[in-house]
Structures are given as structure tokens and as C-alpha cells.
């Protein structure tokens, strides 16, 4: 169970916080919830991505295969592999950068004419900057299909079939329903009554699958589809004072 708040907290309505299980946290589990790979089927692909599996034309067929691969990558990235992918890329970068600095450091005590070093620095700046700009430009464009915003997700998941009203307040979440059908596109209509809160959804394996801010005076709409059954935990991800860490709720996907 969530550790109890160990000192007095004024205005904390514990009944509204609800029971909270201690979710086992796995670092980089395989895709489970969300728009996971496991849920992909030709029928599902066709429904979501307007794919046609019965093509008479070879080119069309190849395009379909390509689209399918793109969709699989997209869904995998939006499932649990997002954190794993980020971790792998990050730590490879850290190792390479550490190695580069170590290499420079071990050669810092040697003698090399600065004119020669300057020439290398100039080339590095010219070509390195060009390469980095191209890589970042490509990353920017490639990231666009993964936008989490409602129109973008609706295009991938289809129109919402289930609507859940969510209200955040210090320090509790209220959901219009606590059971969500798996495999259907859900629209969370998220509001806040007092201050900013963060509506973060944690999968049963303990990783965040998606989130949106809950803001006073605004309504944020978050679309998602849960393909893995289980108990999902909502945690507040925007600091909201003394009971922030107790602002937890659960819902079940079945």
C-alpha cells in the first residue's frame, strides 16, 4: 500500500484519496498497455490506419506493408518501449560522450600545435553543425506522428467510444467511471477545481503511459486506448502542495 502520510496535513480528505496499491515498477517492461504492439491485428490496422490487406496491385501492397511497419513502430513507441528507447539512446550517448572527453583529457597533457588543432575545430564546427542540424531536423519531423494531442490521437485511434469525466482538486481525483473497456478509444475530459494538477496514468507495471494537465478554467481532452487489462493508477504530476503525493486514484481496464 502507499505509505501513509506520516505527519499531519491540514485539509487532506483521506477518504477521497482512495486506496492505492503499490505498483510493481519495472524498468523498461515490454509494451503492454496503451496502443501496444500486442493488440495489432490486420483488422485493427485496417480500422485505425485505413489499410487494405487485399490489394491487387503490388505497389499498393508494398505501401500497405510500409504503412503497417510505420504504424507498428508508432504504436510500439507509444507503448512501453518509449521509456526503454529513450533510456537506450540516452545511455549510448552518455558512453560515447564520456569516451570522447576521456580521449581529449588523456591528450590534454601532450603537445600539439594550436594551428593544427584550430583547423580541426573549424572543420568539426562546419561539418558537425551541418550533420547535427540535419539529424535534429529529421528527428523533429519523425516525431510529429507521435503527438499526443486529441486530433492527432483521434486520427490514429479513431473517434472516442467512451468518455470519462475527470476532476482534480486538492488532493483527490474524481472519475465519472472507474471501469474502462479495453480496446476502445477513451476520451478523458480533464478539469481542475482549484490549482493546476497533472493527470498522469500509470500502467500496472508502474510506468507512465500518458498524461495531461488539469487546469482551473480549462478543459483538456486526452485520448487513449487501453489494450492491456489491469489496475491503472492515476498520480498527480503537477505539484499542488502538501497532499500532492497522496493525490492518487485507480481505475480498472477489463
Amino acid at each position, binding site marked *: 500500500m502507499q505509505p501513509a502520510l506520516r505527519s499531519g496535513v491540514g485539509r487532506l480528505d483521506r477518504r477521497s484519496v482512495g486506496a492505492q496499491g503499490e505498483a510493481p515498477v519495472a524498468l523498461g517492461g515490454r509494451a503492454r498497455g496503451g496502443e501496444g504492439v500486442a493488440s495489432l491485428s490486420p483488422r485493427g490496422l485496417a480500422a485505425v490506419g485505413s489499410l487494405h490487406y487485399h490489394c491487387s496491385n503490388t505497389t499498393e501492397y508494398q505501401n500497405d506493408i510500409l504503412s503497417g511497419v510505420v504504424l507498428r513502430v508508432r504504436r510500439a513507441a507509444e507503448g512501453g518501449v518509449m521509456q526503454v528507447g529513450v533510456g537506450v539512446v540516452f545511455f549510448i550517448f552518455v558512453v560515447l560522450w564520456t569516451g570522447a572527453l576521456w580521449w581529449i583529457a588523456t591528450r590534454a597533457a601532450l603537445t600539439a600545435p594550436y594551428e593544427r588543432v584550430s583547423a580541426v575545430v573549424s572543420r568539426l564546427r562546419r561539418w558537425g553543425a551541418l550533420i547535427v542540424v540535419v539529424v535534429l531536423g529529421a528527428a523533429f519531423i519523425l516525431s510529429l506522428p507521435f503527438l499526443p494531442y486529441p486530433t492527432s490521437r483521434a486520427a490514429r485511434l479513431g473517434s472516442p467510444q467512451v468518455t470519462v469525466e475527470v476532476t482534480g482538486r486538492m488532493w483527490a481525483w474524481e472519475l465519472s467511471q472507474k471501469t474502462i473497456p479495453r480496446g476502445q478509444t477513451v476520451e478523458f475530459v480533464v478539469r481542475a477545481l482549484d490549482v493546476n494538477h497533472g493527470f498522469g496514468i500509470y500502467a500496472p507495471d508502474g510506468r507512465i503511459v500518458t498524461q495531461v494537465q488539469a*487546469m482551473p478554467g480549462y478543459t483538456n481532452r486526452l485520448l487513449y486506448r487501453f489494450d492491456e487489462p489491469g489496475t491503472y493508477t492515476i498520480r498527480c504530476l503537477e505539484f499542488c502542495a502538501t497532499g500532492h503525493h497522496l493525490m492518487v486514484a485507480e481505475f480498472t481496464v477489463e
Partner: protein
Amino acid sequence: MAGRVGNGNSARAQQSVEQATLVYMLVGFAVFLLMGVLGLLMRLQHAGWIDLGPRWFYRIMTLHGSGMVAGVLLASLGGVARVIAPRIGLSPRLLWTAFVVYFLGSGLVILATLVGGFAAGWTTTYPLPVRGDWPMSATWGFLLGYTLVAVAFLLWCLAVLVGALRTFGGFGNTLAWPVLFGRKTERPVPTGPELAATVVAIDGIIAVGAGVVYLVPIFAEMLGLVSGFDVLFAKNMLFLFGHTLVNLNIYLAVALVYATLGAYTGRTFKMGFPVALAFNLVIILVLLPYFHHLYQDFVQPWPLHLIGQFGSYAVGVPAFFVTIIGSLGLLYGSRVRWSAPVIFILAGLWGWVVGGFAAILDGTIAINNVMHNTLWVPAHFHSYYLFGAAGFTWAYLFHTLGGVEGWVTSPAARWLGWLYAIGAGGFVLAFFLSGLQSVPRRYAEHIAAWQVLGQVAVPFVLLLGIAFLGLLILGLRAVPAAWRAPAPAPGSND
């Protein structure tokens, strides 16, 4: 002592500036150490080894964040003022005035958190400051404290900008456009540190303007003049102020790298086209990434989200290819005098780039959707701040106190420098792993599965503490001499 140094201060005024700026750096360093102790308490709490209770945890968290930003910024402002004063001609009286205002503001922040119980986090996101479970007097104290700190920063920015315009004549020359466009000029062109300081001053004034727009309606609400204002607009102003301010700190620290590294490598960081281009780009680029704080505010118009992603990607490119590659070029084959400042700069280059890369990842909207407000975020800014902004500033402080031949080259100082690098590295890597584990940031209590990485981090924080304590003991002995003597010549600021 009546002669003039360059176009700016007289020798006497310069000595007074050096004394004032030494106080800036030493007080900033002391604040940094005290705030570090608060950080250790927070990690001990995350490890499950102490129990502060949520009220005290969040007070400490608020003070740790605001104090670190204020302390490191104060030291950086002092260091840069010391470097640029000989030509730009900063007034010692103005520096002392700004220091007093800054000090009063910081005092109010400390009182508001530790005594008043204010605990809205250092970002104080509206409407939390006026809806929290603490007395309104604490909010008044905290926000007035912030206002005074911002006023002091504004004084510094205005003094630098006016001084630079007077010295170099017009915005074009002040921003090194003759170098950028290959034009001849009879006026002097700024050095790297002078250009960096001018860019910080320009963006600093913009950031403070946003801070005013953020704070005035809150004060109006507390006075009962208005019942509230738009939270999305408030968030935009808040992060335009806060993110930009924190981001600018690294450019101040970069100026200090320029002024330090050359002394130990015997090489010069020349003002040339790449430096001029990079800093002119930074003027605009540094204002864009703040939008990434609002990616999860889905009601924000989406083009602003994309501008945020563009800015998050682009802002690091000039800095990487000018300052970082340039610094490595200074080091390579230079027969460097290994010393605490050089080690701090090398470690700073590591942390700045690692933190920057982490920011690019988190600045990607799709990734941010699963990483926002996890411990990945403090991982990024601790790398950037502890290694970069603070690390570079302490390198210059140690250089100021030790000189090229002084205690900073002793085996003890070098060992302590490496100890700092290892401690800081382990500390931030534990944060990164926690971010990948989806551990939320700003939680007073961690469930058991999250505590392991907190426990891993604590020994590294202790290593950091030992390193800084040792360097403090070594450095303090050099303070009287540094107070009396003129500053060591910057090695590479032309």
C-alpha cells in the same frame, strides 16, 4: 592607483569592483553549499532513511530550488562582472546596491519558507501561491523576495547593457556585428565574455519583464483588486521568466569558461565569426524553449508546442559547436596545467552536454508525454546546473582564489576536483534512471520500489559534500590575499 584600465573603471574602482564581485561569488558559493545540504535531506527522504514529513519536505524543496537558482546566479553575476568591468566600466556602487537588494530578497525567501511555511515550489505556479495551505503573509514574503531578486538582476542587466553600449557604440557593435558580417570598425569589438554578458543582459531584461507581468496580477489578487486571472497566460509568463532566467545562467558561466580555461592551457579563445554568430542566435533561441513546460497543457495552441520543440532542439547547437568544441580544442595537446578549475570545466562540459541531450529528448513532445514531471526533469537540470552553470562558476571562483600557480594545482585540489566529478555524475545518473522508471518529481514520499535509486544517489551526494568541503577549506585560506590583490589576468577573453 588613479589610472584607467581600458575604457572603463579606474584602477581604484576596478579594485572595488573586484572586492564586490568576490563577495558575490563567496556568498553565492555559501548559499550553494547550504542548499546542497537541503538537497541531501531530500534525497535521504527519497531513500526512506529519514522522515521529514510532507510539510517540511515541500518547504525544503521550495527553498532548495529557489536558493540554488539565486545562489548560483549571484555568483555568476559576480564572476562575469569581475571579468567585464575593466572595459565596460561597471560601477562598484551599483554592484553593492544590487547585492544588498539581492540579499534582502533572498532573506525574505528564506523567512517565507522556513518560518512562514510557504511551499509552492520554486516555480510558484499560479494559482498555487494564493491557494496553498500556508498563511498569505508567507506568500507575500516569498513573492516580494522574488521581486527584490529580480530587481537586483535587472540592475545588473541594465548596468551591463548601458556600459557595453557606451564602450562599443550602438547595438550592432555591441553585438559584434562587424565580426559577424566582416565589416571594419574603428570602435573596439566585444570579447567573448563581454558579448555573452550583453546577450544575457538583453534577454534578462525581457525575462524580468515577463516576471513582472506574472507577479503583478498575483499581487493585485492578494490585495483584493482582482478575483483571479488566466492560468494558461500565467504559466506562459512564469516560464518565460523562470526558464529563461535559469537558461541564461549557463551563458554567464560560459563567459567564465572563456576567462578561465586559457590561463591553464596558454591558448586564447578568440572572438571570431562562430562566437559572434552563436551569441547572436542565442538572443532569440533562448526565449523559445520555455514552451516545452506547457506541452501537457493541451489547450495551448499547438504551433506554440512546435515552437517549443524547435527551440529545445536549436538552442543547444550554437553553444555546443562554439563553446564546447572550442573548449575541447583549447585543451587538446595544450600541456594543460591540471588543476581544480580545469577539472571542473571538463566535468562541466560533460554535464552540460549530457543535460542538454536529456533536454532534447524530453523536449520532444511525444517523449515528454511520458517523461514530463518525472525525475528525468530534475536529472536534466541538475546535470546542466550542477556541472555547467555552477561548475563553471566555481572553476572561475577557484581560479580567482588560487591563480594558475596557486593551491588549485595541488594534488589535494585535483583529487577533490575528480571526487566532485564522480559524486555529481553518480548523483545525476541515479536521477536519470528514476526518470526512466517513471518516478514522479516533487513527491515527499516514495514507494519502496522507487527508494532504491534514492539510496544509490545518497553516497554520491556525500562524495559531493566531501569534495566541496575540502575545496572550501583550501580556498578559504586564499580569500584574504584575493581581497587585497588584483584579480589574476583572464587567460582568454579576447
